[in-house]
């Protein structure tokens, strides 16, 4: 128990150090651009926490990011590099919007049906990549990325074509009936009851890693040979894991459609999937770590757009910080590999000696 605490403490310290370093480098860039770093960061903080309205926006961002990152973490534990959360999110949004717009049933049936359709659509979209991997040994990084494009353009086709709002000129569908929308928590703010779903899913994740399925997923990530030896059907588990991972993203797509946008529109995923990957990795694939990282990135995003409006510092500084964190996460993985660590020590040792 003690060592466990110590370990998580160490990991958390590592994550904090990475964020700090990224922020420092970001600050230098702000400085070079002729602005004041402290002022820029202060605007980010006030932009995220300054008012109740800001807080509400913060949590609206945090819901999809957390759900998607948790889904991604399941695939990553199994060493399945699903980077197609955006596509799975989009498919979930499309499926659920179609149910809400075209199916004529009472709301108490439509709502669960739309959730189910989103989960299924996202799950199948990711499951397809899983199936391609088991059947043709197709690398899931490539397939999930390609499926992202397909989903994006499929969505564009729909909102410019068959699903376009007949009353409007914009690339968006007609609006969902009010009775179908996720209820707001407070009348004046956009924050909605989707946050309850996020909390439920976080709790679920703590249990997931204690179920046989969670263990199996984890074992697949330890190696195909040992998994097969242990009696696990590796191919089936790969597909199931990908489907679960995609289902989370699909659910986040439903949440965005029914809780925030109330309609389908072009680019609805707004790149959440990419950030969710960073969040999952920064959070060490651990549910608590993911929640904390997700909170941090929500601050950056909401505060960052505020910073762009209030100061001369562009939003792209947030992208820079995001990119730096990705690099640090990858570097950390390399340095955890003891073989690499020792080799580096050895090489550095030689270098120093020859330098003498």
């Amino acid at each position: 128990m003690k060592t466990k605490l110590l370990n998580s403490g160490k990991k958390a310290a590592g994550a904090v150090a990475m964020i700090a370093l990224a922020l420092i480098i970001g600050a230098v860039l702000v400085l070079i651009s002729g602005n004041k770093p402290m002022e820029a960061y202060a605007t980010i903080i006030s932009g995220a926490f300054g008012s109740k309205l800001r807080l509400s926006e913060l949590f609206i961002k945090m819901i999809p990011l957390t759900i998607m990152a948790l889904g991604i973490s399941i695939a990553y534990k199994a060493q399945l590099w699903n980077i197609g959360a955006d596509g799975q999110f989009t498919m979930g949004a499309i499926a659920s919007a179609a149910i809400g717009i075209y199916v004529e049933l009472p709301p108490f049936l439509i709502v669960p049906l739309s959730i189910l359709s989103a989960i299924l659509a996202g799950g199948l979209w990711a499951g397809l990549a899983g199936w391609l991997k088991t059947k043709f040994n197709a690398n899931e990084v490539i397939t999930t990325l390609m499926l992202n494009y397909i989903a994006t353009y499929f969505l564009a086709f729909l909102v410019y074509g068959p699903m376009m709002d007949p009353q409007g000129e914009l690339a968006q569908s007609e609006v969902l009936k009010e009775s179908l929308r996720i209820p707001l928590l407070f009348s004046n703010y956009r924050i909605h009851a989707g946050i309850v779903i996020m909390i439920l899913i976080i709790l679920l994740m703590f249990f997931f890693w204690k179920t046989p399925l969670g263990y199996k997923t984890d074992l697949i990530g330890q190696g195909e040979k040992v998994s097969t030896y242990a009696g696990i059907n590796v191919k089936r588990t790969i597909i199931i894991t990908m489907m679960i991972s995609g289902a989370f993203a699909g659910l986040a797509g439903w949440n965005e459609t029914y809780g925030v946008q109330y309609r389908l529109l072009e680019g609805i995923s707004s790149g959440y999937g990419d950030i969710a990957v960073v969040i999952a990795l920064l959070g060490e694939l651990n549910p608590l770590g993911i929640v904390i990282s997700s909170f941090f990135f929500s601050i950056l995003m909401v505060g960052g757009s505020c910073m762009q409006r209030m100061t001369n510092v562009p939003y792209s500084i947030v992208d820079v910080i995001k990119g730096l964190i990705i690099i640090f996460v990858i570097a950390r993985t390399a340095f955890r590999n003891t073989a690499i660590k020792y080799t580096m020590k050895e090489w550095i040792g030689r270098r120093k000696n020859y330098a003498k």
Partner: protein
Amino acid sequence: METIAVKMEKITKSFNDVKVLDSIEFKLKRGSIHGLLGENGAGKTTLMNILYGLYNQEDGEIFINGKKENISSPVKAISLGIGMVHQHFMLARPFSVVENVMLGRKSRRGILLDTKQTAEELKTLAEKYKMEIDPYSKIWQLSVGEQQRVEILTAMYQGAEILILDEPTAVLTPQEVDAFFETLKEMRDDGKSIILITHKLEEITSIADEVTVLRDGKMIGRRAVDSTVTKDDLTRMMVGRDVLFDFPKNTIEPGEVKYSIKNVCAKNDKGLPALKEFSLDIRENEVIGVDGNGQKELCEVLTGLRKSDSGEIILNDKKMVNKEPVYYIEQGVSHIPEDRHTTGLALNWSLKRNLILKELNKAPFVKNGLLQPKVIDKYWNETKSEYQIKSINGEEKARALSGGNQQKIILAREINLNPQVLIANQPTRGLDVSAAEYVRKKVLDARNAGTSVLLISADLEEILQLSDRIAVIFDGKLMGILPRGASTHEIGALMMGKKQEVASCEN
């Protein structure tokens, strides 16, 4: 000139409050080969890592060539002329041999690389020590033995006078070992001082000039290796007691035939026939030892890891052919796999989880869809004491354990499933003497409890010791079955004599 190259005095070191080295004395004479002998976990590598500056001792002093030195890092060690070849090599695989040697070194040609010059020097050096190596071949193209040569060459090129070799022969074939020992002798005659970490007694008696024995972090003794030193003496020093190289005769006679393999054909990874009409019956309470090639494919077919082309496997009148691995597990076929690192264990998982690796969805470990930590803890504690597994609390990764302890986890898991059949593939490979003895005893216990055991081993001694009958395979076909007490000569004759009669499988 000082004749003692290295003197370590009262070296003490602890990890997590456990003393792994307790006031060790170590002395290495210049121009000699010094064996550092001990079982896995005795502290050999730790002691040498201190000498190489990877760890710092808590207490004690180190003298190099009679001068007291504080070796705080490998940088310091290298500058003192100490080189170390680890068990895991530190080579950049896409680079060539000479590029690896040059890594981190300043070029003599300014901004241009001095590859050619270095390669020439390297060649001369290699020839001097009778090592064959092409400086321009890429590391990934080399065999493990050749990679080891590169490591040694690198150390020598850097001017190492004292060379530490950590279990160097573990990765070598018997032929390579002979050549390797020649190189070591060459180096010794050249005045280099060599420390050979090992748990193999033969290596000490065949090459070492002196030996220091460690046990449980304590220094047991240091002596010159001459004709009066016997293996038994060394074993006693290393293990602390006599080791049973002979087990008592089995008292329970084998029963009825329980497990039959009938006319099985299978291909190897290259698509060539590996098993040809292979048949074998194993009785209750019986160990059958298998010698010859095709063993790996046989194990995999029997456990569902490989598909067979034809034939039948029958256990208690039940046919089981080309099913999923889980089916064989459920039918009571236990398997100690050849490679415990990639197959037998999930190295990054805790010991506890590895212990229930095959029961991740079975009661009592799972209840209401959740794993039961308390039940698992209880099972772990029982198993840990029964199998004498050295562990703090079972939460440490399997990777952190010695080979013997890792094998005990696998053994415990497979035997506790109360198997009908136990397929043990190289169960004692790489284990030290007492761990191997323990594993063999447990295999015999399983036999006496009624299990049919198929024992596959490259160690003929082991097969002769444990088997009730010995099956000889040649070229994928069963050549014959010998009774207990057969000699190695008979096995050899069977392998050679019937060569011509090998039948072939269709397709």
